[in-house]
Structures are given as structure tokens and as C-alpha cells.
């Protein structure tokens, strides 16, 4: 039986000399869900861009339905029945869902768009593939999960038989992920073929029939998913054994390091982003902050680190109030910060690695003595830290820009950890970094906790929070709606209910003193139906 798609001996060399694909053979059978996994830079995106006509291979052939094809551009790919859903959605925010779906090949009434027809088309598609959308809603007012369904429907409307989904779960809540998986299965039942790009191994096991693993531009494994374990796939990806689970000794809580009381932040637009937040972080524990992105986590972290002024409330570090102080004073009080947006806040791309490692300490000995800066001291530190944290680069004078995402993150981790903080705030510390670096960051965070530091871990990746945190605070619309003890009894569903605003503990807001006396607030119920599924439960128990 010949494959539905076959890419033979694909090589891709970019003009700057980077070899992204080396003699890659890749085949997908009709009607299967095929996972394509690999670390960042392994060449999986390039391979898929070639298949979708966004890049041309330097070498190699593409066969589709048993015939050799040339895919010069995405138009050609669409004509051939290949559709791709990108990680960053490409939708017009001010258009309705129906308008977005038909955009480019609209049903017309005379010279104008036939709206009724567009809505009818959308409803039919939506029904037949089980992808629920509201055709009349504008994209800008719909949640991320729905936007993704719109992207998928869009490709189906254009007649795609083969769907390429590029890291589709990166932006979803567990419930949304679950819905997506159901929809993907339904697509396959109806004869579609799906290529699923991801680096989350749990998902590979759960959704795919077969898996192709890439590393350094080459295929390192092509197996039936049922035959391998997560650890096997990880080994193929990284080239060595990887520890997916982190061993954590039981928590030994020490003193209160950070006390946050009734903290509020109103954005410049007048919108309250953080509302009446209170919590403590203890020495020797990791407090996780979960929540769908955009529910105030970013602002909470930036207020705590002095990058934005708090509007109300108090923050104390080791008993000393720090709200309203400069970022430098807060750092000197013992707070370190791994920022969520690495490229904007965490590094200066055009500065050297050594300078990046010194940005918080250049003005004190040994880097500056009697007002004179010592580039040598900055360099010496860099060499030591690069060795200690295993940062791979051409040298300490190399520009930050030359590093991979994982190594950049290691530079940030090296700087923030070596500051010897009492409180470490880590925001999305493994976003966009490869498995090897993720493992490294996780190990380091737990090591800090075991040393008796307080760690505040903010992450949109629920699995990350659940595997690392001792307690989990969930943020919803700027509030902390629950602080839960982590443990085997705690399920993703449970947290998901808090994340979606369906459940809240009034007591959670008033850790210690303060917020307890306030009146109950009405629960805001989202209109979308939510059905907990057995799937995630199973996934969770397998994972443990």
C-alpha cells in the first residue's frame, strides 16, 4: 500500500548556510493521525513548510496520492488538498467567523458577499465535522479555542484532505485540548488525514497513530505510537535518556518569604488587571500560578518585580514592604525574575552573553570598584556561569542573538539563579525551549526549592505547574479564585474548573488576614458548555 503523502530524500539548505533538513524521508498513510515531533530547530517546521509550499526543497521529491507533485506555493498546496493551521492564527479580528471562513473564495450575491450563504456554509461545515463555532461572532470577541476551530474549518472549506496542525495545543486549556482531540478524531473518521506537530509527548501518546521523530534535521525514528513509551520518544528526540518526571522530596516549608496582600493593578487603559490578590510564598516551596493566559498573571509578576507600579495593596519580602520601589531595589531585596517574554525583557540580543549575565550586578564589586567597571570581571563571571549552567555558545563575547532559544533561557536562568535570591519568580520558564533545556530548568527550580528558596512559578502549561508546584493558585480575570494543595487527589479537571471561572473558593483570596470579610460575588458563568471527559483523567493517571 502506498502512502498518502510521501516526502523522499528532502534536503533544505537556507541561503545563510543552515541545513534544516538532511535527506528526510517522511510518509503519512491515508486516514491516520501522524505526530511529527522534535525539539526546536529539529527541522519539523521546515519540512512542513516545504509540504505546504512555503519553502522549496534544495533536494528531494514529494509524492501525493501516488503521483509526483511540485508544490510551488500554498495556493498549489490548497489545490492539492493540503491545509495548514499555523501556530499564530491568521484571521481577521474584526470579521465574523463566517466571513473569515469564506474569505478568499466567498459566495457572492451580485458583486457583494452573500452573508446568509456564508453563515449557512459555516453551519454545515461546523455540524459535519463537530467543530462548534458561532458563525456570527466576531473573531476578536471569541476565545482562542474557537479561533483555532475557525482555522481548521477554513482549511476544510477549501477542500483539504490533509491537515497540518502546527503545535495546536500550545495555547489551549486542558478542556479545550480535549475538545480539539475529539474533533481531530472525528475528522479522521470522515476520511481526513492529520499531521500533528508537537513537542508534548503526552499528546503524542494520546492522539497519534504513528510518530516521526526528528533531530538536527534528520529523522531519528518512525514508529507506531502504541509500540513506544514517552521515554522512548524523548530519547529519540534528544539523543539521550531524559528524565521526564522530577523527583521531589516532600515539602519542608520554612518562613514566609513573600507576602502579597490585597494587591491591585489597574492598567493605563483603566482596566483592572489584578484584583485584590493575596497570597504567601514560603521558603522551601514552589507556589504555582495557573490560569489561562491573559488573566492577570503577567501583570501580577510585573508588579511584584517593580516593572509596573501597584495600584493598591502591599507586597513584603522578608517582612519589608517593597511595593512602589524600583526594580533595582526589589532585586536587592532578594527577588529574582525569569521573565515571561524572553526576547523583550530577558535579554538584549545585540549585547554579548557576558553583558547579558551582568545586567543586574554590573555596578557593584567585583564588576565595578571605585566607579570603574572591569570588563574582565564581567567576562570571568560569564565563563564560570556558562560552564556551570552548560550554556553552549561560541564564547562569552558572542552576541546573544547567536544562541538557540534553549541556550538563551539558560543564560537567563544562570543570571537569576546566581543572584542568590530569597524569592525566585519564574514566568513561563520553559516556553519555547526544547526538552533538554526544559528538563534543565525544571531540575534547577526544584533544586532551588530544596535549598530553601521560595519559588513562584507562573505557567500557562498546566502539566508543568502540576508536576512542579507544591501549591497551586489559579488566576481568573485578575483574581486568585483558589489556592489548592497539589497532590495525587488534584486533577486537571478540577483546576480547569477554576481556570474557566466555573468554581472559586472565597477563602482563597484571604490567605491570612485581609480579604475575608468581603461580600460574595456572583459567579460569572461562561456561555460555552463544558463537559469533563474521561480522557484527561486517564492521561493524568498515566502520567503520574
Amino acid at each position, binding site marked *: 500500500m502506498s502512502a498518502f503523502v510521501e516526502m523522499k530524500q528532502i*534536503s533544505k*539548505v*537556507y*541561503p*545563510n*548556510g543552515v*541545513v534544516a533538513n538532511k*535527506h528526510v524521508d517522511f510518509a503519512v498513510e491515508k486516514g491516520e493521525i501522524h505526530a511529527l515531533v522534535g525539539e526546536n530547530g529539529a527541522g519539523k517546521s521546515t519540512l512542513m513548510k516545504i509540504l505546504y509550499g512555503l519553502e522549496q526543497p*534544495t*533536494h528531494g521529491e514529494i509524492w501525493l496520492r501516488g503521483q509526483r507533485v511540485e508544490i510551488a506555493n500554498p495556493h498549489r498546496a490548497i489545490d492539492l488538498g493540503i491545509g495548514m493551521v499555523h501556530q499564530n492564527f491568521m484571521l481577521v479580528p474584526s470579521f465574523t467567523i463566517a466571513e473569515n471562513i469564506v474569505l478568499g473564495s466567498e459566495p457572492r450575491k451580485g458583486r457583494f458577499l452573500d452573508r446568509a450563504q456564508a453563515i449557512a456554509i459555516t453551519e454545515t461545515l461546523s455540524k459535519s465535522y463537530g467543530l462548534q463555532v458561532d458563525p456570527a461572532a466576531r473573531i476578536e470577541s471569541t476565545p482562542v479555542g474557537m479561533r483555532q476551530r475557525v482555522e481548521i474549518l477554513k482549511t476544510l472549506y477549501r477542500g483539504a484532505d490533509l491537515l497540518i496542525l502546527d503545535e495546536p495545543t500550545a495555547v489551549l486549556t486542558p478542556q479545550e485540548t480535549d475538545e480539539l482531540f475529539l474533533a481531530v478524531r472525528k475528522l479522521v473518521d470522515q476520511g481526513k488525514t492529520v499531521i500533528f506537530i508537537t513537542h508534548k509527548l503526552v499528546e503524542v501518546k494520546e492522539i497519534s497513530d504513528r510518530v516521526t521523530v526528528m533531530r538536527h534535521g534528520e529523522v531519528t525514528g518512525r514508529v507506531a505510537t502504541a509500540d513506544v513509551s514517552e521515554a522512548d520518544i524523548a530519547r529519540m528526540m534528544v539523543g539521550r535518556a531524559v528524565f521526564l518526571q522530577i523527583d521531589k522530596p516532600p515539602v519542608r516549608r520554612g518562613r514566609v518569604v513573600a507576602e502579597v496582600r490585597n494587591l491591585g493593578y489597574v492598567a493605563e487603559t483603566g482596566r483592572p488587571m489584578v484584583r485584590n490578590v493575596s497570597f504567601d510564598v514560603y521558603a522551601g516551596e514552589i507556589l504555582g500560578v495557573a490560569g489561562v493566559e491573559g488573566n492577570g498573571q503577567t501583570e501580577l509578576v510585573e508588579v511584584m*518585580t517593580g*516593572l509596573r507600579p501597584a495600584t493598591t495593596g502591599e507586597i513584603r519580602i522578608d517582612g519589608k514592604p517593597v511595593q512602589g520601589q*524600583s*526594580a*533595582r531595589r526589589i*532585586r*536587592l531585596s532578594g527577588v529574582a*525574575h525569569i*521573565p515571561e517574554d524572553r526576547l*523583550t*525583557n*530577558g*535579554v*538584549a*540580543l*545585540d*549585547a554579548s552573553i557576558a*553583558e547579558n549575565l*551582568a*545586567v*543586574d550586578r*554590573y*555596578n557593584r564589586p567585583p564588576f*565595578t570598584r571605585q*566607579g*570603574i*567597571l*572591569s*570588563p574582565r570581571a564581567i567576562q570571568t563571571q560569564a565563563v564560570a556561569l556558562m560552564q556551570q549552567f552548560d550554556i553552549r555558545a*561560541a*564564547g562569552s*563575547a558572542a552576541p546573544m542573538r547567536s544562541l538557540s532559544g534553549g541556550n538563551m533561557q539558560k543564560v537567563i536562568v544562570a543570571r537569576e539563579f546566581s543572584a542568590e535570591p530569597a524569592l525566585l519568580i519564574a514566568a513561563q520558564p520553559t516556553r519555547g525551549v526544547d526538552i533538554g533545556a526544559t528538563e534543565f530548568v525544571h531540575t534547577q527550580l526544584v533544586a532551588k526549592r530544596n535549598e530553601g528558596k521560595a519559588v513562584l512559578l507562573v505557567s500557562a502549561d498546566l502539566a508543568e505547574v502540576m508536576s512542579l508546584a507544591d501549591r497551586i493558585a489559579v488566576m481568573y480575570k485578575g483574581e486568585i479564585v483558589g489556592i489548592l494543595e497539589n497532590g495525587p487527589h488534584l486533577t486537571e479537571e478540577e483546576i480547569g474548573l477554576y481556570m474557566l471561572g466555573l468554581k472559586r473558593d472565597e477563602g482563597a483570596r484571604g490567605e491570612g488576614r485581609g480579604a475575608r470579610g468581603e461580600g460574595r460575588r456572583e459567579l460569572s458563568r461562561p456561555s460555552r458548555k463544558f463537559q469533563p471527559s474521561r480522557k484527561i483523567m486517564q492521561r493524568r493517571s498515566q502520567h503520574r
Partner: protein
Amino acid sequence: MTQNKTLIEAIRIVVVVLIALAIGFVITALVSKEPVAAYTALLTGPLPKISFENGFAITNINRFGNWMEESTTLILLGLAVAIVFKARQFSLGAEGQMLLGALATAVIALKLALPFPWHMILALAAAMAIGFLWGLLPGLLKAYLAVDEIVSTLMFNVIALQLFDLLLFNWLRDPTAGFVGTVPFPDSAVLPLAISGTRVSWMIFIMLAAVVIVWFLMERTPFGFELKMLGANRKFAEYGGINTKRVIALSMAVSGILAGLAGAHLSMGLLKRLTINLSPGLGFEGIVVALLARNDPRWVLVAGLFYGYLRTGAQIMERSSDVTREVVLIIQAIIILLITAEQLFPRFQQWWGARRNNEAAMERG
């Protein structure tokens, strides 16, 4: 690795200068009856002539002097611009700071009677102080009120120019002179000569010291580190705890000190008085020097000498050949344009590298 880079950079500059000069020659050949003589004037004009015909003699020392004078001003202005550009603040205020620096020296020179060297030192200090202030104000506006520094510094230039004219016409002007200008400064407030037969003054030493000091400031002080981090990524600098508002305001103020000194050079060194239309547009030439030098003070010295040479040679070419001033300026602009075309050489390297890599990949495949 860095040595290799420096070498490539040096080769790049030499190649580009040669290309630029060749294009310049083609243009000269198009407009001149005696292109070789005219171009020779441009290329060798600023050099003193050494002759052995009647025993050893150096002539045309004044042309060499012109080169040094021009370069001294340009280097001071180039340093001023390099500081703000390093911090990625696009301050264009050097012109106004220079004018006010010159104005301040005139006030001190003409309205105070002091012995040398105190008179001279006070005049220099006044020029630096007013330059500092005239940079600090738009700096504070940028830092605390987010006023775009391009707009504010250009406006400050307008204000400075009008202040200059106002004070010169109504207060400092010598009514008996046949032109709008002051009486000559007293000797106590004039910069002493460094090379006789020229107008090259002690300012050349001050300029050399300024190169060293600015280099030291940028590379060996915490402020320089802050400047660099601000320029590399403001949000990152803030995240690291740097008070970027302070650094923005200070970078523009410190830059003003050097522009103020450039103004003092014009009044106390070259003209020895204040005149109207002191040197329109000169303040902006510092941008060219800083761009050529990629904001590195050491290269500002080299670029200032190069650009000063080119400008002096152009003036000599204009005086001594049939090539008009406009054409000379065109040639000058083309040379600068080519040198600042950063991508010219990398593009070539990229193309070359890709070709080689492709071939290598083919061979392997």
C-alpha cells in the same frame, strides 16, 4: 574570531572607499576639463608639501592646519552624537548645543575681565555647562514625558539659533564693524596655538583627551554599561534594574558637553570672535562621523580625520579647479553613502557563503 572580524571590517572599508573614490572620479571626469588635476587636489590637497629643491622646506602647512581644525570640530561633534546613538536616543541637538556653547564663550570672553588661563578655562566651562543643560532639557522631556527626542532637539535647535541671533544683535555685536559680529576676544580668552602658521589650537589636545575620556566612559564605567544596555534593549535594561530615565536624560546631557566644546572651538580657536551664521549645519556633520565610526570613540577619531580630510580636500578642489562646489558636495555625499551602506558587503558575503554551502551540500548529497 574578533580579530578576524576586525580584519574583514577593515577590508570592507578599504574596498568601499576605493569604489566610492572611483565613482567620484567618474563624476569629476564628466564635469571637468582637467579631471586628474582636480581629483589630485581633492585627494592630496590637505597634505603639506615637502620640497627639497631649495633645501628642506614644508609648504602649504596652512592646508594641513585646515584639515586638523576641521577634524577637531568634527571629532568633538562625532563623540557627542556617538554617545546618544549608543544609547539609541536620536538626539539631533548638537547644532543648537554648539551654537549656545559658542555664545557662552563670547559672553564670558567679552563681559568678564580675567587673567589667562582662568578666563579661557571659565569660557570653556561655560560652553560645556550650557551644552550640558541644552541636552539635559530635551533628555528630561524624553525620559519623563515621552517627548520624542527628534522633535524636541530640533525645536531646541531653533530656540538656540534665535537666542544666538538675539543676543548677538542686541548685546554682543560690535556696532562699528562692517558685519554682524563681536569684537575679537581678548587674548586671555583665546585658545593658544599648537602649530604656528595654522589655526590649530590647544583644542586639538582637548579633543584627544575627550576621545580617551568618552572611550573610558563608555567601556570602563557603570554609566557606559547602562548606556549600552539602554541602547541594546530598553525593556531589558529596566528589567535588570537600570534607571533608564536617568540614563536617557544623562546621555543627552553628556553629549551636549562635547557639542558645547565644539562651539567653543569655533569661537575661541578658529574665529576668535562670534559672528552671525557661525557654521550652519555643521552640528549635523557629527552624525556622519558617528555613523562611520559605528559609535565607537576610537573610530570617531579615525572617521573624523577621514571626513575632515575629505571636506578640506573638497574645499581645495573647489578653489583650485573648475569643479564647482555642488559637484564636490555630491562626490562627498556619495562616498559617505557607500561607506554607511552596511549591507553592501554582508550581502556579498552571504551570497558567496550560500553558494559554497550549496555546493558542499550537493557534493554530500
